[in-house]
């Protein structure tokens, strides 16, 4: 394997407390050194990272790549290209593929497709219940052995709390992490917008915060009862952050993430009936957004995910309530992170940690850091370079982003996955 030398970049490696200008040396797919030149090191490839930032590759805790089953929306090939161009080197895949990831064969198929796409770092999240129907447990252990990194339930409801309790007990028996987006199906009432002034004005079926916080509270109680490790994903409101902090204070083994767009957009940013803003959980209030930002800065929210959900054109063409929720979000991940830094919400090392070392820790992956000996997953980006979100620059098959046509700052110049350059 090639030896790579990354020269004179600002190295940000939160796991090791590094933030300084220097070189990174890579050999045999692994980090060799981030300090002095190893004796006898002779690079095959030199990468000039002057004026650029060198950090671990990003680890995305929640994505949908639409394959298998919905390749009209996107494919593993198209979305891993987008991921590579966005500096993302590890992807967790939600289980609501078609078929659902509830059998080892499906997980193996995804792993195969990932290998074929030249992007092996895709981690399927196994369905907690068969077909995500919320009634019968999936073969979690077999799924784990087939390469699933955790268990989850996508957007589907678990039928009742007894089934959730048993699923959590079973997952805990095999030391499986449960990744859950807390949502009470009934309180959600098939809504499509935050229950607030905007939904009232536009007559949109609405989702109260309580749909999230009640489900979160119930699951926290069950986490305590069952000892299951739980990672709460895509939290959207202030009161969820407070509940997570409380649970952590109480010593529960829980972690949480927030989708990047929730740190930037609120219900007030929605152009009326513009389906690009249709997401689940819905965009909430300015107060929620500010508190979510504080939650990340304080470490209450451990990670930031893209919540990438590419769609075909048709999925977003229609009256707002009938359009499909979700944003194609991989490629705006870094620019939006830099915007958080520019807004003073986070320091750059804090932001990088939320996309690298912290997700690695949550998932138990030996990645997300530039520690010598770890696989060389590296992202090199120019924090000042600007680019326009348009057909010339966009790689995801889904163009469903509210940022379409806007200028973004922050461009990934190189992405290395286990020492292999997958984007430059």
């Amino acid at each position, binding site marked *: 394997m090639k030896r790579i030398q990354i020269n004179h970049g600002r190295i940000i490696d939160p796991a090791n407390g590094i933030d300084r200008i220097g070189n990174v040396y890579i050999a045999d797919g692994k980090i060799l050194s981030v300090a002095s030149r190893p004796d006898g090191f002779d690079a095959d490839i030199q990468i000039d990272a002057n004026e650029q930032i060198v950090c671990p590759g990003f680890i995305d805790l929640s994505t949908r790549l639409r394959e298998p089953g919905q390749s009209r929306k996107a494919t593993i090939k198209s979305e891993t290209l987008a991921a590579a161009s966005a500096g993302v080197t590890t992807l967790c895949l939600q289980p609501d593929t078609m078929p659902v990831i509830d059998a080892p064969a499906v997980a193996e198929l995804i792993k195969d497709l990932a290998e074929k796409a030249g992007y092996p770092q895709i981690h399927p999240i196994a369905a907690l219940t068969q077909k995500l129907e919320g009634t019968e447990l999936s073969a979690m252990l077999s799924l784990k052995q087939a390469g699933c990194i955790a268990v989850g339930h996508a957007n589907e409801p678990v039928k009742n709390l007894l089934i959730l309790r048993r699923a959590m007990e079973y997952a805990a028996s095999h030391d499986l992490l449960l990744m859950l987006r807390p949502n009470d199906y009934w309180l959600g009432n098939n809504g499509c917008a935050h229950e*607030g002034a905007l939904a*009232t004005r*536009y007559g*949109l*079926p*609405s989702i109260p915060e309580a749909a999230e916080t009640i489900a979160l509270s119930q699951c926290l109680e069950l986490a305590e009862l069952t000892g299951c490790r739980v990672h709460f994903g895509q939290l959207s409101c202030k009161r969820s952050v407070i509940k997570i902090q409380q649970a952590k204070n109480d010593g529960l083994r829980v972690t949480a993430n927030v989708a990047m767009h929730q740190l930037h957009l609120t219900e007030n940013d929605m152009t009326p*009936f513009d389906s690009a803003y249709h997401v689940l959980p819905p965009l909430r209030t300015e107060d929620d957004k500010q508190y979510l930002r504080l939650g990340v800065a304080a470490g209450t929210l451990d990670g930031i995910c893209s919540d990438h959900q590419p769609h075909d054109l048709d999925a977003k*063409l229609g009256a*707002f*309530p009938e359009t499909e929720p979700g944003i194609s979000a991989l490629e705006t991940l870094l620019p939006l992170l830099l915007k958080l830094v520019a807004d003073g919400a986070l320091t750059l090392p804090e932001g990088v940690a939320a996309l690298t070392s912290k997700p690695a820790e949550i998932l138990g992956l030996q990645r997300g850091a530039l520690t010598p000996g770890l696989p060389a997953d590296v992202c090199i980006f120019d924090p000042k370079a600007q680019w326009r979100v348009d057909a010339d620059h966009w790689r995801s098959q889904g163009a469903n982003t509210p940022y379409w046509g806007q200028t973004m700052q922050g461009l990934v110049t190189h992405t290395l996955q286990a020492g292999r350059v997958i984007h430059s």
Partner: protein
Amino acid sequence: MSAILQLTPEGKLKHFLTIEGLDKSLLTEILDLAESFAGMSDQQVKKVPILRGKTIVNLFFENSTRTRTTFELAAKRLSADVLSINIATSATSKGESLLDTIRNLEAMFVDMFVVRHALSGAAHFIAQQVAPHISVINAGDGQHAHPTQAMLDMFTIRQIKKDFAPLKVAIIGDILHSRVARSEIVALNALGVTEVRVIAPKTLLPAHVETLGVKVFYNLNEGLKDVDVVMMLRLQKERMSSALLPSESEYFKCFGLTEDKLKLAKPDAIVMHPGPINRGVEIDSKVADGPQSVILKQVSNGIAIRMAVMAMAMQPQGTSA
């Protein structure tokens, strides 16, 4: 955005999707034009040639009798060719998308769509998608807006009360699911009434309803005090099955408008209802058919208002209006 979408750069009406973003002078222009059309109804020849040669398609994805009929009559009195399609039982039930339906009709050289749809935002979506020369009139979209209903009610109020400024108006019933209520509230506030009240149990009020510019009452007797206009809303049967209300009879007991309760309003208060009426559920027959009821006047006024809106929306495309 909505306002921008429905107005030309000169501020003229292009589509009519919502009352929001339309100022008092434009609303007054609609009312004035409707008034000139209203006079025509008594004449022998009820037609004017304003939209001669234009093709209007009534596209009803939801059933309606009153609204569809008055739109059809309004179009005919403007001399347009009009076609009414009941999509609820047509193409979309065969799996055709909203956009495909529109595209197909567009290909038949249509000049205007009058759209009713069960989802909020449908009319906006269609207005964004149609060719630039086509106008879209919202005949009710989900729980969002029903602007012609609101305008015909404003017209009826103005006929009787002359001036909006001193009025207190109470809207009673299922505000949560009502596109009529949302449009009425915006129109009344834009025309400068003293106070708009909503009266309903919490289950039938949307969150933060006060942000719409209304005073909230949970008690009918308190809310009716001193009002000049009483607007009743239809109560859909399915509200009982979705646990929003215990029963029709309990609703009538609390929020049904009876002669006794109407006495709490001003003696010259008028009673309105967008129809169809559920007698004995939201309104007692004696009130619905009583001297203070203007319910049938509303229906007649619907034609004049819809003529006015259609004529104005087609004006940027060169009509003789």
